[in-house]
């Protein structure tokens, strides 16, 4: 399942997508994100499945544009730490 966190506003679209089929709940994104964007919790979208997946923390969902600023300078941009750290390639950003 593709879980999209974020929003669209007058300035653009800001979404982080996590593919829950790929996510293993390994915690690597949690450790590497300088803004502590992620957390690993019991799958909120399938209460009957007993497994843990990464989600974007509630308090960041409406301000992703600003939360992600440390890794997204306006000049030359290095690969995003969360995208790189995720071995199953479950994380992607829309901007």
């Amino acid at each position, binding site marked *: 399942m*593709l*879980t999209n966190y974020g929003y669209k506003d007058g300035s653009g679209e800001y979404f982080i997508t996590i593919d829950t089929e790929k996510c293993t709940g390994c915690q690597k994104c949690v450790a590497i994100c300088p803004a502590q964007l992620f957390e690993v919790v019991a799958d909120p*979208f399938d*209460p*009957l499945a007993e497994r843990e997946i990464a989600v974007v923390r509630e308090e960041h969902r409406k301000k992703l544009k600003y939360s992600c600023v440390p890794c997204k300078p306006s000049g030359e941009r290095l690969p995003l730490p969360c995208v790189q750290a995720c071995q199953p390639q479950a994380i992607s950003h829309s901007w």
Partner: protein
Amino acid sequence: MAEAVATATPQKREYWRWTEYNWRDESLDWRGARVISVGIDVGSVSSQAVILCDGKLFAYSSLRTGSNSPTSAQRALDAALEKTEVPREKIHYIVATGYGRVNIPIAHKAITEIACHARGANFIYGPTVRTVLDMGGQDCKAIRCDEKGKVTNFLMNDKCAAGTGRGMEVMADLLQVPIEEVGPASLAVDEEPPPVSSTCVVFAKSEVLSLLRLGWPRERVLAAFCSAMAHRTVELLMRIGVEREFAITGGIAKNVGIVQRVKRELGIEALKPKIDPQIAGALGAALFAKALYEKEQKQ
């Protein structure tokens, strides 16, 4: 000197206010039921409670959410129980969902409304539903699901009230059109006017006021507003992709002005609900409550 006379001003009519209701299936007898499960959806504008007997829809209620979610949940449950004679202690399992779900002490578990809406839509519209648009009180969700009602992709816009019930209430009040008549009135135009601003309800409100000052009739203004809101939700849907069959849940599913325009813009029909589409979230929660109770019993 003339005496000041207190003139009784007539009570101002609340155009935004919609009717609260409850319902029960008279043909069902709860006494024989093995599992009585309850789902309570405490939304930002309205609260629903659904009672299921062995997975069959037995009773439901829809009320306005107050400022306190535990009380709103209790009121919704009481209203649903009112016609049923089911004693409170006969309920086996309660699942809470919606905006206020985290703070409901009477519930055994809280589940995100995205999972609940997909499950509820699957129950209301049948297993052919693949895309669900939930237009709620304060947010709007586009959900893709499989034949079992399991979510496969979702997108939520809860940053702004544009395209939601709250925005609709604001317009109903501003234009003094009862909320139930907003949809039909917005369709009573010969030609679709250009839409108003769709990024924000407050901007839309000031735009609507200037249109009124230009002498636009109310119907035309409502058409401009509804088409903006429909366009906004269609954009949300386009991001996750629309697959047949398509259904709309939530309070706005009852607004024909929005439903017609969403259909027109998407170019596909929306399924007709057999049950009140506003209870989809609570219904999904009640279905989860049944599954969770059975799982607990097995252990």
